[in-house]
């Protein structure tokens, strides 16, 4: 039974993966189309906006319109866009006069650094706190943790960011913005870490509450599970019961939610990036929207949608990986 079912499991998994991938690809393209349509609807005069404040001749305006393809009909622009995307090109930014892919690649690193660190810290912190406070529901620890995380969750990010910035940009210790000290000859890991502290702290403070909540409630759900009684009856200490039995199970429902949340994190970073002058994708999007720089918008849009879609896919896979019950199906 075992070996046979493993065989079907693998086949079933392959098929499941293929299905999920196909759905993801479809999702991706649909979001692209939605994005294109919405962005194209935006009333905008990019040429005038770009050249605002600069001497510009009529010929120059016409030339710019031509260069940006603004005179092409919508459908043609759509086809170009789809074609470009399929080829893996993201077009040419209007305002930065560069390949969108270059721009996105430049800004992706810092965003991933900030988001990755914040996510890692807040997931770790959130899960740990959530686990402990759920395990002893109603304890002082639980009340403090839940209260603090709820309060922090209720704070507008940009506001918290500003307040932290003013309060903690300490001379020589925590800088007020940027990703590295420009007067250093080379990029220094410690220096970047220093710059990362405040923006990361801001993100963490705001988002870790979500993980606390999820983990806490799944631990509370698990707490009454019969297998925990078994574990206790075996003579395990309370901490071991929690760590070795409750935690892995409570993690299951949290995982999906965490991944889904991670997917939206990238696009949620605009305000933090703005407050801390972090050279990331969020702020680039914001700039793109102001013009609006359609190719650039599309480019960042693709990244954002893709990150959500990929994270959802990963959530699914992670769930399957973590839960043997689903794994075999």
């Amino acid at each position: 039974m075992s070996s046979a079912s493993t065989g079907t499991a693998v086949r079933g998994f392959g098929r499941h993966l293929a299905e999920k991938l196909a759905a993801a690809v479809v999702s991706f393209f649909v979001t692209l189309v939605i994005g294109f349509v919405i962005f194209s609807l935006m009333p905008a005069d990019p040429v005038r906006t770009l050249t605002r404040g600069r001497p510009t001749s009529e010929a120059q305006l016409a030339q710019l319109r031509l260069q940006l393809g603004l005179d092409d009909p919508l459908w043609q622009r759509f086809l170009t866009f789809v074609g470009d995307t399929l080829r893996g090109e993201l077009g040419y930014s209007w305002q930065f006069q560069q390949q969108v892919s270059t721009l996105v690649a430049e800004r992706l690193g810092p965003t991933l650094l900030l988001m990755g660190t914040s996510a890692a810290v807040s997931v770790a912190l959130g899960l740990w706190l959530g686990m402990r406070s759920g395990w002893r529901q109603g304890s002082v620890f639980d009340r403090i943790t839940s209260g603090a995380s709820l309060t922090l969750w209720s704070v507008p990010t940009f506001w918290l960011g500003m307040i932290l910035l003013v309060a903690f940009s300490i001379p020589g210790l925590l800088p007020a913005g940027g990703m590295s000290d420009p007067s250093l000859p080379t990029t220094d890991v410690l220096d970047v870490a220093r710059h990362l502290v405040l923006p990361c702290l801001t993100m963490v403070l705001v988002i870790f509450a979500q993980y606390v909540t999820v983990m806490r409630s799944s631990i509370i759900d698990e707490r009454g599970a019969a297998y925990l009684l078994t574990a206790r009856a075996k003579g395990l200490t309370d901490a071991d019961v929690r760590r070795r039995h409750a935690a892995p199970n409570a993690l299951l429902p949290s995982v999906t939610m965490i991944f889904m949340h991670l997917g939206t994190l990238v696009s949620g970073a605009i305000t933090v990036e703005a407050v801390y002058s972090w050279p990331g994708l969020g702020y680039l999007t914001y700039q793109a929207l102001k013009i609006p720089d359609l190719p650039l918008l599309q480019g960042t849009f693709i990244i954002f949608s893709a990150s959500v879609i990929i994270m959802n896919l990963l959530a699914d896979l992670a769930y399957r990986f973590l839960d043997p019950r689903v794994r075999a199906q």
Partner: protein
Amino acid sequence: QDTTLRVKMSGSGVDTLNPFLAFFNGALDIFGTIYPSLNSLDENGKPGPYLATEWTQGPDQLTWTFKLREGLKWSDGRPITAEDAAWTLELIRTDSVAGTANGSLVSNFERVTAPDPTTLVIKTKKPQANVMYVSIPISGIPIVPKHVWEPHVKELKDYKNDAFPVVGYGPWTLTDHRPEQYARFDANKGFVLGAPGFDHLVQQSFKESDAAVAALRSGQLDYINGVNPTQFTALKADSSLLAVQEVGNGWTGIELNPGARTRSGKPIGTGHPALREQVVRDAIALAIDKPTLVTKVINGLGQLGHGYLPPAWPQWSWKPAPEEEHVFDPAKANQLLDAAGYTKGADGVRVDPKSGKPLAFRLGTHSDDSADAAISTYLVGWLEAIGVKLTIQPLSMSALNSDLAKGDWDILMDGWTTGPDPTYLLGIQTCATLPKDDGTGGNTEAYYCDKDYDALFERQLTTADPAERATIVAEMQRTLYKANVDQILYYANTLDVARTDTVKGIVTGTPNADGLHPAQTAFWSYLKAAPPTATKAGAPGGSGGGTAVWLGLGALVIVAVGGTLVLRRRKTAGDRE
């Protein structure tokens, strides 16, 4: 130890380091310091020598001859010759990609040649009085080394110009640039207009001005060019900081739709017909209490708005005579409107007798501009008092421009800054800038179109004598002032703050009676800035000490965490399972 001047990068940062393509302030700023130009601007905004030491207009009025210095070298050691300048200008003139950013500046050029390494000859199509403003730092054309750029002409559109150090010439050499982060420069100690006082210059990008101020206070920055009035007022009180005001090089105002139309006279858009009437525009001008705006919106850190060209350029600045001036007088405004037959309806809003429409106007504001938001609420209140209703529509810059181009607007918040050459700003009030019938081609400021004004515009273009040109420009501004299509509300001063412990000499020129410095044109601030004393002024709490504190703190955290863990362990091992 080397000294570094750390300043906030201006405006919206750098779009591209390719000077043929860039539009953003931050980029133009950089080009102004790393590429030479034919002329520089003196501290009063007048053309001065740079690469060129002399410039003369030939008798045919079409030939300009620039005498260039000998012996200047690009940062890679190759000589700077007239050929570089000629090549740069010709490329912009002939290549549409190269003309992306600055094409308009050379559109009247017939041909640019370099008969010898120190002579540059510019032939214009029509007489042009402002050729010495064409290549100036920041707002004009930077000259680039031909030997570096020639190989990239084919792929100019994709050339990022990021081989550091960037070959150029100027007070500084660009040694590194990270998009959205910083630009780093080394001083050119042999710079022809004087050696920079610092060894390095760093421009760092800050998106929130409060973050920049925090950085200044904590010593991460030495200088911020452009803080807002509230910040300025607060920082002025700080004795360790130097807060200075400079005469503004721009204005804030409103524009009223005088009847949008195309070049052929076809009306377009949805502008309110009443605004076509001079009397309505005049009444609006009288109803606005500009002094209150100056005190309330910009904390008094600016000047009352009058003429179309800002006071930073005294050579062009114009003020109405007292009898011409629109002084806040709502009673008179009401009289004017009553007399013209705009009677008030039941709701207190006047009605246009011709169209039967109430005098209810849309007021488009820039949604990302806090001053716009503040001003617009005042305007609503004041105009209500003369029976005119305003509905505020916050718009993105782009949407606003789009409405403007389509003529779908009544009143818009408006603002311009300008370099020392007023040609362009004056030009966008001419009939020639109205859109074509297909809607393209227009870059009109506000659909203003007046034959007399156009004639004056043509005249000043060709008037070589600066004084005479100034009179014509003044007359043009009077015409605009009377038309009340553009109503200039105020000229905000430029507000700068610098640390006094790390930098001195950041502002140049002598302040006027009000304590206002002349506008800091071109690269002078950074060039003349120097460490305050001979002793090296390291960053306060520089990285050395900082690291120690940092490490100490880290250690503390580790001890704390470790301690709690140990304690916890001991406790859990104890009683309750």
